[in-house]
């Protein structure tokens, strides 16, 4: 049984990820034959427009999906372990609410000067910076709170409170804004995997790599935290440092994703559960790779479905993740039945 699971983890998950990556790139509003796609990569003779589509649209989008899936899932895993709460996810510390506040401020305040964002050069970077600043601001306050409060549970509540405050401010701003601006903000909240240029992708990729590397340092403390904070402390774990590292890692992972792609719900919450249930383990050494691969697979899959193969429509990714992910989790729970024991 264990060997089987090991085999599955080592071989199957990367293969499925690769498969989904290929499918993801193959599908889109413009039908491109598979052989031509391969030609694009091996430098064969292909129509220029097709090459452009692959290199500048489909590949960045697929890679974005992959990074987003990995980042959110890993960050969700850390949050669930830190807070010992199965409902925790990457955004419990108020990252997405902070980001939405930043974006809302930019979109709505520009209306005061009578400018629409799309008219500004570098508008996408402006949104990214606004989201990052908003997320950082909220995180900074949460970090200050983390210095003062003793237990992680209080930290969770502080994070949730900030979510409420920023949500309220955004509501007030929406109340005084034009339909056009509200729609623009709404579109941002739908999330989007497309539209990242390569330079943006590099920045996001860098953030994800650093965030993941921090996780490699955190495997031991995260495992120790499974027994509770007091046990962890008695085994020599530096709780404060661990909490800081987890917060920093999550701000890079979830903050980066939110800044570039908008809020993307559910993946961060659901994937750790999928990994735990599929591999029947809570051990982070085994769980982390599983979460990384499953996160990538789920996000690539959601993106494939969101593109509505064969049509030119694209559904909002933020809705797709919940629409696809929730039934999967319910299905796994019903099959395994003893969910309660599996949660960490």
């Amino acid at each position, binding site marked *: 049984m264990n060997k089987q699971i090991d085999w599955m983890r080592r071989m199957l998950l990367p293969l499925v990820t690769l498969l989904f990556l290929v499918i993801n790139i193959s599908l889109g509003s413009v039908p491109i034959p598979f052989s031509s796609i391969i030609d694009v990569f091996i430098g064969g003779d292909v129509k220029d427009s097709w090459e452009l589509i692959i290199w500048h649209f489909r590949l960045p989008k697929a890679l974005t999906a992959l990074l987003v899936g990995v980042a959110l899932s890993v960050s969700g895993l850390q949050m669930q372990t830190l807070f*010992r709460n199965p409902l925790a996810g990457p955004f419990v510390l108020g990252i997405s609410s902070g980001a939405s506040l930043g974006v809302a401020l930019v979109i709505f305040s520009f209306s005061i000067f009578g400018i629409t964002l799309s008219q500004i050069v570098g508008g996408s970077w402006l949104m990214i910076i606004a989201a990052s600043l908003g997320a950082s601001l909220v995180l900074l306050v949460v970090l200050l709170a983390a210095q003062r409060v003793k237990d992680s549970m209080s930290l969770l509540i502080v994070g949730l409170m900030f979510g409420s405050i920023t949500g309220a401010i955004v509501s007030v701003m929406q109340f005084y804004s034009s339909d056009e601006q509200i729609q623009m903000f709404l579109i941002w909240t739908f999330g989007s995997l497309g539209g990242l240029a390569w330079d943006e992708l590099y920045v996001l990729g860098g953030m994800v790599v650093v965030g993941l590397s921090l996780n*490699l*340092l955190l*495997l*031991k403390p995260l*495992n*120790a935290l*499974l*027994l*509770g904070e*007091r*046990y962890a*402390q*008695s*085994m*020599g*774990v*530096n709780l404060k440092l661990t909490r800081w590292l987890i917060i920093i890692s999550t701000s890079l992972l979830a903050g980066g994703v939110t800044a570039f792609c908008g809020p993307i719900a559910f993946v961060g919450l659901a994937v750790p559960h999928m990994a*735990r249930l599929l591999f*029947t*383990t*809570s*051990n982070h*050494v085994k769980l982390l790779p599983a979460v990384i691969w499953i996160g990538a697979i789920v996000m690539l899959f959601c993106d494939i479905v969101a593109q509505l193969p064969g049509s030119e429509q694209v559904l909002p990714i933020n809705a797709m993740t919940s629409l696809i992910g929730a039934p999967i989790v319910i299905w796994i729970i019903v099959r395994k039945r*003893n969910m*309660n*024991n*599996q*949660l*960490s």
Partner: protein
Amino acid sequence: MELIEDILLKTNQLSVGYTQKRKPLPILSGINLSLKRGELVCLMGQNGVGKSTLLRTLSGVQTPLEGYVELDGENIHQLSRIETAKRISLVLTERLNAGNLTVYEVVAMGRYPYIGLDIRLSNEDLDKLDEVIELVGIRTIVEKPIYQLSDGQLQKVMIARALAQNGEIIVLDEPTAHLDLNNRVSVIRLLKSLATTTGKLVLMATHELDLALQTADRLILVDQKGGLSEGIPEDLVLNGTLDKVFDLKGFDLKTGKYQHESGTLGDIQLIGDGYSYLWTKNALERVGFSVVDNGERSIEVMVGDNVIKWQYGKKYVTSIRDLIDLL
């Protein structure tokens, strides 16, 4: 004879408690204790007297308000985090919800202070794990996930984890709290034998008066007013300290029995010996008779081959129930 080198944990005018608004709020103070290697020490007292605070301070988690704790001559609060972890291990009451970890994975966490961030166990670590698994007797369940264990098994696993940490002291906070009688006895026996065989100091807070009296090498009692008394169990029973601390009502520690309201149903003389006598006496006292040397009524317990008979007046009965009915 107390040899100096046998003393492992020593406190000097220790005062434990909390600081509120920069003002110290001592719960227990003036504590001077010397605890030896290889001893099972039970810390007892009613709820809320500060046992846990004392335990936390003794294990180096909480800083004392005054005085200091010495571990083998070193001030515990000056040890590094890892050093403390290598010398003191804890077993707590809190429920784990790490359901999917296997027993082995949990026990292996005991080695965390010794290994790097990549959680790679050396041969030495593996040997140690093997040793403690054998010692605690959980070999048959090592591959099981935690959520399948009974409370008793789980407590043994946590004790094994503490042993794997290889400290000189194991501190346990009410290790028998959720257990049934059978498991309580087996956990305490395990701790007792561990103290003896490994030479570690086993320090536990417990409410199990009867078990503590029979197994502990030493008791530390905390009374309601924050006073501390310490000694071997038998002394504390005989000099009445235990009665005072626990404010025992109707339980006679010297005989180890619950004291019944005597004499409501009259006196009875009981003739006999051995267990049959003892249990008959118990039953009579429980229902409200006083057993005396010379009573108007008398009962004789007669033990034959495999049968016990009770004679009351001219009647014979074959069970205590019938005897009580008769009376």
